């Protein structure tokens, strides 16, 4: 099983500069745990108190995961995951 994950510039310090990495898991949280095993530190930047961080957007096949279950969003082989930090401020 392989799921491609697009990594934003700001998080590429965890992926040796790679723009995309692959991982697997049947849900977004399982995928993040799998990524964490190869790219330690990444999980903390995505998850806080058991939930997706407020200002991190994750998309599965172009769908914002907040609308499809958040960390429980189901994943299958070949899915495309994109991580984008929110562009926001005050």
């Amino acid at each position: 099983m392989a799921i491609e994950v697009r990594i934003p510039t700001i998080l590429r310090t965890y992926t040796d500069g790679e723009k995309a990495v692959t991982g697997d898991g049947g849900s977004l949280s399982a995928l993040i745990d799998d990524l964490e095993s190869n790219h330690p530190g990444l999980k903390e930047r995505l998850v806080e108190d058991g939930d997706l961080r407020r200002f991190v957007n994750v998309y599965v096949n172009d769908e914002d995961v907040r609308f499809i279950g958040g960390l429980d969003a189901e994943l299958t082989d070949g899915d495309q995951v994109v991580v984008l930090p929110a562009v926001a401020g005050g």
Partner: protein
Amino acid sequence: MLTISEATYDAIVAHAKRDHPDEACGIVAGPEGSDRPERVVEMVNAAGSPTFYEFDSTELLELYKEMWAKDEEPVVIYHSHTATEAYPSRTDIGLASEPGAHYVLVSTREHGNNDGPVEFRSYRIVDGEVTEEEVRVVPALS
């Protein structure tokens, strides 16, 4: 230093004035690694607020996919302050996530929707550290 064309400068200022008293936001895309702000993309402020801005998450993805397809990056990320100076707020600094971008702040506090000068300033925001830089407005990018 940020070097920007008059047309791009004017477009950002016009957007900020139009959306006042809400904050306006957008980017100027350019070829990856070029430091050339070429293509203004106005974004909807999903927060619709005079004190906060946030790109709509679906539009954000569309924007990045388009930039990836064109080998572009956000050279400038801009937004307006409508009641305070054109300096990054604590929230701006905490949420800045494009270390390669010029963060442009426009303040419309003086003239609002009307004609008149605005503050237009640019910063680098890296690891929570803000560095102001000179803004050079040129007739056209060379």
